[in-house]
C-alpha cells in the first residue's frame, strides 16, 4: 500500500512541476503578443492617460518576473481576471461553458473505450482474416480525417438525409432543467425527468460519436497490436493446451495485460479530444467552451485566452494522473515495485 501512496505523491509532484511550466509557457506566450495589452483592451479611442492607468493596475510597468509573480498569485486565488469580450470574470465564463464541453468529451471517451477496445480484440482474434483487414482499414479511416469532417458527414447523413438525430443544441428548449452539475445527462436524472434525459442523450449522441471516431480507430489499432503480442506469450499457449475456451482466454487472460499500453495512449487521446471538441462544437452549434474560445481568440482577449488554455491543460494533467494510477492498479509490477519505472 505504501508504494501506491508513494506513486501518487510522485505523480502529483511531477504534475505540479509540469503545471508550473505550463503557467510559465502561457505567461510567455501572452507577453509575446506584439502591441500593448492595455491599449488592445481599451481600444484605439482611449487617451494616453487611461492606458497608463490600466497599465499600472495590470502591473505592466513592473519587471517581468514580478508580473509573473502577480500572475501566479492571482491564478492560485482562482482569479483569472475579467474577460474583455463578456465583461465578466473569466472563471464565471469558463464555469458556464466548460461542463458542456466536458460532457461531450466524456461521452466520446466512453464511446471510444466501449467501441474501440472490442473492435481491436475482434481484429486480433481473427488476425489476417477478412474481418481483421476490414476492421483495420475502417479504423485507419477513422484516424485519417479531422473530427470536423466526420461531424459534417455524420450530420449530413443522420440529421439531414435520414433525419434521425437533431442538428444542433444540447436539448429541446421545452425542457427546463435546473442546473446542478452543468452536465445535462446528470441534471436531468437528478430532476427525475426521464424524457429530458433521453432527449439530451439524443442530442449528444452524434457530436460525441463524431468526436470519438479518431479515438475509436486509435484504440482499436493499439488494442489489436497489443493483443496479438500477448497471444504469442507462452502462458496463453498453456491456457489453450488446457482447453480454456477462446472467449475466456481473450476476455480474462489476454485482455488485461494488453490494456496497459493502450491506456497511456487513451490518456493522450483524451487530450486530443479536448482540442478537437472545438471543431465538433463548431459544426453542431454545441454551447461549450469552443465558441467562447474561438471568440476570445479572434478578439485577442488576453485574460480569457490564458484562462481557457490553463483550464484545459489542468484538466488534461488531471486525466493523465488518473491514467497513470489506473495503470499502476492494473500492473502489479508497478504497484509493488519500490521505484516505479
Amino acid at each position, binding site marked *: 500500500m505504501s508504494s501506491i501512496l508513494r506513486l501518487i505523491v510522485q505523480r502529483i509532484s511531477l504534475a505540479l512541476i509540469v503545471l508550473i511550466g505550463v503557467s510559465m509557457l502561457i505567461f510567455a506566450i501572452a507577453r509575446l503578443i506584439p502591441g500593448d495589452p492595455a491599449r488592445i483592451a481599451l481600444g484605439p479611442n482611449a487617451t494616453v492617460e487611461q492606458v497608463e492607468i490600466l497599465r499600472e493596475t495590470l502591473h505592466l510597468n513592473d519587471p517581468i518576473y514580478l508580473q509573473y509573480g502577480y500572475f501566479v498569485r492571482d491564478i492560485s486565488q482562482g482569479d483569472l481576471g475579467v474577460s474583455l469580450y463578456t465583461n465578466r470574470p473569466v472563471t464565471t465564463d469558463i464555469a458556464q461553458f466548460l461542463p458542456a464541453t466536458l460532457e461531450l468529451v466524456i461521452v466520446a471517451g466512453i464511446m471510444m473505450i466501449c467501441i474501440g477496445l472490442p473492435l481491436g480484440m475482434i481484429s486480433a482474434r481473427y488476425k489476417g482474416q477478412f474481418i481483421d483487414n476490414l476492421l483495420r*482499414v475502417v479504423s485507419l479511416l477513422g484516424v485519417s480525417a*479531422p473530427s470536423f469532417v466526420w461531424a459534417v458527414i455524420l450530420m449530413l447523413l443522420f440529421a439531414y438525409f435520414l433525419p434521425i438525430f437533431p442538428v444542433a443544441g444540447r436539448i429541446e428548449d421545452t425542457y427546463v432543467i435546473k442546473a446542478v452539475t452543468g452536465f445535462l445527462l446528470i441534471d436531468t436524472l437528478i430532476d427525475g425527468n426521464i424524457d429530458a434525459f433521453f432527449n439530451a442523450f439524443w442530442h449528444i449522441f452524434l457530436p460525441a460519436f463524431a468526436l470519438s471516431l479518431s479515438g475509436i480507430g486509435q484504440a482499436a489499432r493499439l488494442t489489436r497490436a497489443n493483443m496479438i503480442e500477448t497471444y504469442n506469450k507462452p502462458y496463453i499457449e498453456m491456457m489453450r493446451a488446457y482447453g480454456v475456451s477462446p472467449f475466456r482466454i481473450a476476455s480474462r487472460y489476454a485482455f488485461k495485460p494488453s490494456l496497459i499500453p493502450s491506456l497511456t495512449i487513451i490518456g493522450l487521446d483524451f487530450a486530443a479530444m479536448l482540442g478537437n471538441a472545438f*471543431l465538433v462544437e463548431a459544426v453542431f452549434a454545441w454551447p461549450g467552451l469552443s465558441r467562447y474560445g474561438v471568440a476570445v481568440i479572434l478578439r485577442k482577449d488576453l485574460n480569457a485566452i490564458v484562462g481557457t488554455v490553463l483550464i484545459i491543460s489542468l484538466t488534461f494533467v488531471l486525466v493523465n494522473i488518473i491514467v497513470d494510477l489506473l495503470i499502476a492498479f492494473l500492473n502489479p509490477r508497478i504497484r509493488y515495485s519500490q521505484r516505479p519505472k
Partner: protein
Amino acid sequence: MKLKIKILLANPLSFMGLLLISLVFGSAIFADFITPFPLHKGAVVDFSNFNQAPNLTNIMGTDLVGRDLFTRIIYAFRISIMLGVVVLIISVPIGVFMGLLAGYSGGKLDFVLMRITDVFLSIPPLVLAMAVMGLLEPTILNGMLAVTAMWWPWYTRLIYNLTRSEKEEGYVVAAEVVGASRWHIMFREILPNCTHAIITKMTLDFGFVILIVSSLSFLGLGVQAPTPDLGSMVAEGARYLPDSWWLTVFPGLAILIIVFGFNLVGDALRDMMDTDS
C-alpha cells in the same frame, strides 16, 4: 531502401497508400495543366455560375462565387503539402536533437529537458496552436510557427526513449571506451540507429500535420482567403448544409485522402520495422 519500396509495392494496402500519395503530389505539382480552370485558384468571381451542383463542366460543383471546386481543391493540396514539409523540416531536427541530448546525457539535463517536453505535451496540440495563432496574426507563416511549436516534443520523447535503450548497447560502450566525443556518439553512433523510427514517424506525421493545419483553418485561424485551403473550404461550406453539400463533402474527402495515404504507408513502414528488430 530499394528493397523497402519493393516490399511497399507488394502489399496491397501500402501500394494503395503510395498511389494516393503520388496522386496528390502529382496533381499538386501539375495543377496548372490538369485543372480545368487554373484561374479559379485566386480571387476571381463568376456569379453567373455560382453554387452549382456537380455537373459535367464542374465535376465537383462550384462555390459561392462561381469558382470550380475541383480546381480549388487541387490547388489547396499545394498549400497543405508545403505546410507539412516546412513544419517537419523545422520541428524534427529540434526534437531529435533535444531527445538525443536528454537521453544520452542523463542526470539534471535529462530531467529539465524532459519536463520542458512534458509541459508542451500537456497542452492539447490544437489548443496550443490556437493560442499562439490567436495572439499573433492569423497568417500562413504564424500557422507554421504555431504547429511547429507543438510538434517537436513528440520527436524528443521518441528519440529520448530510443537513446536510453541504445546507449546501453555494446557499440556505444565500445565507442566510449575508445574515447569518442559525446557529440560523435550522439550523432554518428546513436542517431543512425534511430533513422528508421524517425522516417516512420515522419510519414505518419505528414498526414497529421495536414490534419491539424486544416483544423486551424477550419476555425478561421489558419490559411486566409483567397488562398484555397481545404479546412477553410469546409468551414465556409458548413453554413450551407444540407443543400450545398458538395461545398463541404469534397474538400473534407480530400483531407481524408491525403491523410489516409500517409497513414497506409506509415503503417506498412512500422510493420517492417517491427519485423526487422
